[in-house]
């Protein structure tokens, strides 16, 4: 790959790549091909699946790298319970301080966290956070510090995390049942994905953790290597800066902090930390670290590193107040990659200036801003205060970036070039200078590799990342790895990590370089880190050599490197290993072919979905081939027997339960599918419908309530259809696509809907339940209930719930006198008689206890209600409303509502007469 190959492209456009877009290729003639022997084309985006696989990245080995709480004593996160050690920030306890809603959220994520949570038994809830008096100086108002230009209170001080808007709703797991917990966390993920309130993001919060190399002057003299350092902010208001050496001696062991943490309280929120990187040609590292806070610029100089004890000796080169420029807060600082003592700063409005670290001077005033090498890229149309500054490809060129512009300055020749104007379709999100030649620009739409060297700035390769363009909190981090280290044939690899402060995923896209040729790896990878719920506040990579990671003993080794990150609002810094997923790829492909497999995905939004939805069958249901139409009648008969057998079993059970009325806790509910093995195939829907109808009518007088077919039909087709045959025909009209097996599919689907969703419930225990509940009530509540029915007619129309409860109450009251044990016996004795089903019509007529009724259930209740109004006093407690709210089967309550509504009319009339 020599002789000046590069991708053909338009100037200022470059190779514009994206998902599925791999144009701008280069043809390799057959003579040249002989050396490489594999490809005819050099693509912009590699399509070769083999190379792709080695760049499909995953994260493993998430572990705690640093816990700020231990270092500083002032903690931002409270320990929730003992499980916290495992789950860390996963478990987020938040309580609303407002009195208007008492909602408490326990937020457990990840199956691991959920499993470990003692959901039953000890309650993990704590209503209040541990309150500690905080000696944090961020709260102090100081006379000499200018007031930060915020008109509102910073969220950190309020300390109620944004969970308020996101995780609304009480989510208390009182059940180990998988589907239950899955459904509630699904709700959680739903809320998480769709934040209701607009999120206000402070764009000047750039970085609160950074890693870098430090090479002190004395170290240079003694010819020792540069040390890797991690600098991070901590404290209640993120106002304490910490430095610590990183022990990277052993490549096989995970890196960790070595020695003591050196902390310094800056008394103002830390916005940005910068460790300068010098040009590779100098082959050395800096000895300074710059920290930007809300009100000053601080530069720390590492004087000496004692290797044995890993202690640091650090000097503060003094604050540089913002008043030295134009009183606006500085948002970014860059160091000259060729001159250690020169730096440039930019403020929120785009004023920039060069500055120097002077060797000699008063102890705290060694940062001097230049008086004449300053200027402004102020754009009145730019509202965001996000700005970035970086050195260009030359000694005297600066790159200034705002959300809508990228400007190259030559401060020696005093020229400026507006390289990018992004005011229409996209806006700039982040800019990273990789080395003297390459910079990576992340916009709201693309990741762009820019070549800074040469006569003109070149837009080399871009990748359309398809992330939400509205997400303003997107940041990027670039790690360069040489191809040899990653064991691939490319010269250099650029791993671009794009992460957001609002969403937990990290998108990694890999570009690679071969001479002049810059290409992109096809599909990027999405890193999902366990237990990360909100976004990432900052991500950094340890400058450790690429390590080879081995999953299992016989698995191939995969290259990877370590990354540090911190969740937004979290104090914990986590360490993960990002490595190639080559060994992981194949097992996921093999499993589970018959159903849609989201298992390989394992991402939070999908992980929380109910299992029933995850295992969606790919094929429509179809009946078995060996079906004989003539056989149908006997099939129906058999099924009828099975059903009534199952029903009778339950009736016996229910009767047993009723023997002990004090213990009755509520009605039990089943569906047809729970009674008997579903029928294999239904050809004649009308017949099947009448079978079920007969069954319902037969058991009607056993005080069993069935879900009406009209309830189901109105849910499916928004019409009240009382007959199964008609419903089937209507569905067939909708679902007929002209395939030969349309009928079978429809009938199968309808059959399973009917069998699974027709609720069967005994209403007999309801009066006992009501009675029990009433007995358990306190006197004051009883009074309310007693006085409930005294209200005159006009209140009836006010609250629908009360109506329902009242009417259901009358209904259940009405049932009360009719409970007789003899009825159960009757049903038992009656069933064996039903040996052969008579023709449907005849059976219907025979089994109807009251002749001439089209809706037996309704009319039956009508009679009961009449009875009730005659027999029972009006002051009977409607305690059923409490129970019915907690009923597990909605279909039942639906049908009851319907019944009760009809019922109300009847009752009114009765009252009118009375």
């Amino acid at each position, binding site marked *: 790959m020599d002789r000046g190959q590069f991708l053909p492209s*338009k100037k200022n456009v470059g190779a514009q790549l994206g998902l599925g877009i*791999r144009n701008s290729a280069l*043809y390799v003639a057959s003579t040249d091909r002989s050396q490489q022997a594999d490809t005819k084309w050099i693509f912009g985006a590699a399509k070769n699946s083999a190379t792709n696989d080695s760049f499909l990245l995953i994260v493993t080995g998430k572990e705690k790298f640093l816990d700020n709480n231990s270092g500083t004593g002032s903690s931002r996160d409270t320990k929730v319970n003992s499980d916290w050690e495992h789950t860390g920030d996963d478990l987020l306890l938040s309580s609303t301080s407002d009195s208007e809603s008492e909602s408490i959220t326990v937020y457990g994520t990840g199956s691991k966290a959920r499993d470990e949570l003692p959901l039953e038994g000890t309650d993990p809830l704590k209503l209040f956070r541990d309150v500690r008096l905080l000696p944090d100086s961020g709260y102090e108002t100081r006379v000499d510090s200018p007031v930060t230009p915020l008109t509102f209170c910073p969220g950190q001080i309020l300390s109620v995390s944004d969970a308020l808007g996101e995780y609304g709703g009480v989510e208390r797991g009182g059940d180990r049942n998988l589907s239950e917990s899955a459904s509630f966390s699904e709700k959680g993920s739903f809320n998480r994905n769709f934040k209701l309130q607009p999120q206000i993001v402070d764009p000047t919060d750039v970085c609160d953790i950074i890693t870098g190399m430090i090479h002190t002057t004395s170290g240079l003299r003694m010819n020792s290597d540069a040390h890797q350092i991690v600098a991070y902010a901590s404290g209640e208001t993120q106002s304490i800066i910490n430095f610590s050496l990183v022990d990277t001696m052993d490549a096989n062991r995970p890196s960790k902090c070595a020695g003591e943490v050196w902390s310094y309280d800056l008394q103002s929120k830390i916005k940005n930390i910068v460790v300068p990187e010098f040009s590779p040609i100098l082959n050395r590292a800096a000895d300074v670290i710059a920290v930007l806070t809300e009100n000053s610029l601080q530069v720390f100089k590492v004087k000496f590193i004692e290797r044995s004890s890993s202690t640091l000796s650090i000097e503060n080169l003094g604050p540089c107040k913002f008043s030295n420029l134009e009183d606006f807060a500085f948002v970014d600082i860059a160091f000259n990659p060729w001159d250690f003592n020169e730096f440039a700063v930019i403020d929120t409005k785009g004023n920039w200036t060069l500055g120097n670290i002077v060797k000699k001077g008063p102890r705290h005033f060694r940062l001097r801003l230049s008086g004449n090498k300053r200027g402004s890229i102020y754009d009145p149309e730019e509202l965001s205060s996000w700005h970035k500054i970086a050195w260009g490809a030359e000694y005297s060129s600066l790159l200034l970036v705002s959300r809508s512009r990228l400007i190259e300055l030559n401060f020696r020749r005093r020229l400026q070039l507006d390289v990018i*104007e992004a005011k229409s379709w996209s806006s700039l999100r982040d800019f990273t200078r990789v080395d003297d030649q390459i910079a990576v620009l992340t916009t709201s739409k693309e990741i762009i590799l820019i070549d800074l060297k040469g006569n003109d700035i070149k837009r080399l390769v871009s990748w359309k990342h398809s*992330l939400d363009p509205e997400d303003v909190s997107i940041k990027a981090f670039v790690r360069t790895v040489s191809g040899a280290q990653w064991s691939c044939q490319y010269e250099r690899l650029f791993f671009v990590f794009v992460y957001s402060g609002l969403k937990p995923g990290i998108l990694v896209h890999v570009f690679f370089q071969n001479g002049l040729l810059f290409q992109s790896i096809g599909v990027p990878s999405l890193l999902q880190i366990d237990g990360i719920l909100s976004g990432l506040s900052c991500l950094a990579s340890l400058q450790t050599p690429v390590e080879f990671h081995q999953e299992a003993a016989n698995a191939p080794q995969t290259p990877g490197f370590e990354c540090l990150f911190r969740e937004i609002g979290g104090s914990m810094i986590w360490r993960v290993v990002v490595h190639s997923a080559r060994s992981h790829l194949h097992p996921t492909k093999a499993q589970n072919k018959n159903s849609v497999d989201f298992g*390989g995905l394992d991402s939070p939004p999908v992980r929380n979905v109910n299992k029933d939805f995850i295992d969606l069958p790919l094929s429509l249901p179809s009946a078995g081939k060996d079906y004989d139409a003539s056989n149908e009648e006997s099939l129906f008969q058999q099924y009828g027997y099975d059903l009534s057998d199952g029903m009778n079993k339950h009736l016996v059970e229910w009767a047993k339960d009723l023997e002990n009325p004090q213990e009755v806790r509520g009605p039990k509910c089943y569906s047809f599918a729970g009674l008997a093995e579903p029928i294999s195939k239904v050809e004649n829907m009308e017949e099947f419908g009448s079978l079920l109808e007969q069954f319902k009518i037969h058991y009607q007088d056993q005080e069993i309530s069935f879900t009406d077919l009209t309830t189901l039909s109105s849910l499916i087709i928004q019409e009240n259809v009382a007959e199964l045959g008609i419903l089937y025909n209507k569905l067939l009209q909708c679902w007929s696509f002209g395939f030969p097996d349309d009928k079978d599919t429809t009938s199968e689907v309808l059959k399973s809907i009917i069998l699974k969703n027709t609720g069967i419930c005994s209403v007999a225990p309801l009066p006992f339940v009501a009675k029990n509940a009433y007995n358990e009530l306190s006197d004051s509540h009883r009074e309310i209930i007693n006085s409930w029915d005294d209200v005159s007619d006009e209140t009836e129309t006010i609250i629908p719930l009360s109506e329902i409860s009242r009417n259901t109450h009358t209904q259940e009251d009405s049932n009360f006198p009719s409970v007789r044990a003899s009825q159960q016996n009757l049903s038992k004795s009656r069933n064996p008689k039903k040996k052969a089903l008579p023709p449907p019509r005849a059976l219907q007529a025979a089994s109807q206890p009251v002749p001439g009724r089209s809706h037996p259930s309704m009319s039956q209740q009508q009679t009961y209600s009449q009875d009730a109004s005659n027999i029972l006093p009006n002051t009977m407690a409607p305690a059923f409303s409490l129970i019915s709210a907690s009923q597990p089967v909605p279909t039942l309550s639906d049908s009851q509502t319907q019944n009760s509504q009809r019922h109300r009319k009847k009752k009114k009339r009765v009252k009118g007469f009375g």
Partner: protein
Amino acid sequence: MFELPAVQNSKRIRTIRKLRYQYINALHREHAKTQGQINADGTLPTPENSAAEETSDVDADRASTLIRKRRKRRSLSILGCADSDSELSDTELQDPDAQDDPHRHHFQQDSEKAFYARHEKPQETFESWNTDRRNAVPMISRTISYADCKHIERSAHRRTIARNTHISQAAHLQYSAIRSGQEVFMPPSFGYHSVHYHQLSELLHLSILSRNWENAYRCFSVLIRLPGIDVRSLWGAGVAILDALSQSKKGIATSTDFLGWLSSIYTSRSNFNHSMNLSLDPVFRSGSKTHTAKFVISWLWETLFDACSDINLSQTKMYDGIDSRLPKLMEKLSEMILAPPYMEDPEVWFIYAVCHLVCADKFSERFCNQGDGFSGLEKDIARNQVVQHITNTQNCLKKCMVKGADFNYPERFLQEQLASFEKRLYFDGNADQSQMEAKSSEDNTSDSSSSNLDTQELPAADLSSFINEDEDEDYFGRSERVHFGFDSDESSS
């Protein structure tokens, strides 16, 4: 977390947009005032503004049409049907009261439009790029002072809030956040449809990123059928999915077919209207008379890749046992370059050039391999063909340079390739060559004999004969034989 392929529009979003652009415009005006760039009467704003306005020579013409329109409307308004006429209701003149102050009126009318009147809406890229260092302008070395900036912001705020006294509290909160330099993430709408669209598009992207192509295919096929979803903002994902699936799964069209379908359905013949407030970008999504749609370019490239690939050579794409894919593509290209926007697009010309380059490569390679099997006349014809393709390539590349001086391609690399093709023609067959030839004729006796019989069939000989030869290249070390001069006449009979 992913982009939604549909327009999001709600009252909430519109309000914030309006506020934002009104404030920006007000800031712009105030800033211009302090810079002394604005005229006393306030009719015309800054130089950038006027540059974006219509050029001066059109102005007179335009003014007269405006006057005519005004007259017509006036007479219509007397008749009482002024507003019903859509033809006359151009945005600038809807309100007769504001005619004395067109700029102010414009401001009221559509602040977003007023903003974009000052800024170009690029079609090729999302941002407008200006990378030529020769265009550098003197640096602004005056910093903006705190007092000035606050003054500008205060007056702009006054101006904006005067028009929006009755905005909702939420909008006001967001507005003040924007004003203080913060950024606001607007959550998507909570409506059922929006949630559904979001879930689907998230699932689609997650499935793609985890290489779960089956799922992605399902999500994609559902998503593109939903109303309000523009398939053109999703086509990249579609191509990626079809690419991955079409080989393994039967009954699914290839990605090339999909791109071809897109190119035939969605036209590039419309004009890109800068004065329209578009909510979706045209960069990857659509084409216009001055911008070739990305999917068309992609289609051309993909077809070219397909035409050059040796595998999946299905029977349908063969014509008389010959691979007709490349000639078909070239035919298509030769039609396309007759009309805009393809006529003016250097990339289309470049693709045309590459087509010829590939042809030249194929023919010259076959000439090499079968050189001794040809009679003198056949040899001349074959050689002419190669030379013709080389010339065509050169012409197309030239055209490509003329059409867009901005097009970069590795010229030296291509020229070297062309030179090497030419060298092959005048390369004398030596022992290795004849040996190879003998082998190839053994392999494909029927093919070579048929091509020997009919000279006219030469360009259309079976490719497979020299596909086999590819593997032998290293063995015979042909790659080292390039240093023969292409002016050596020994090979010509």
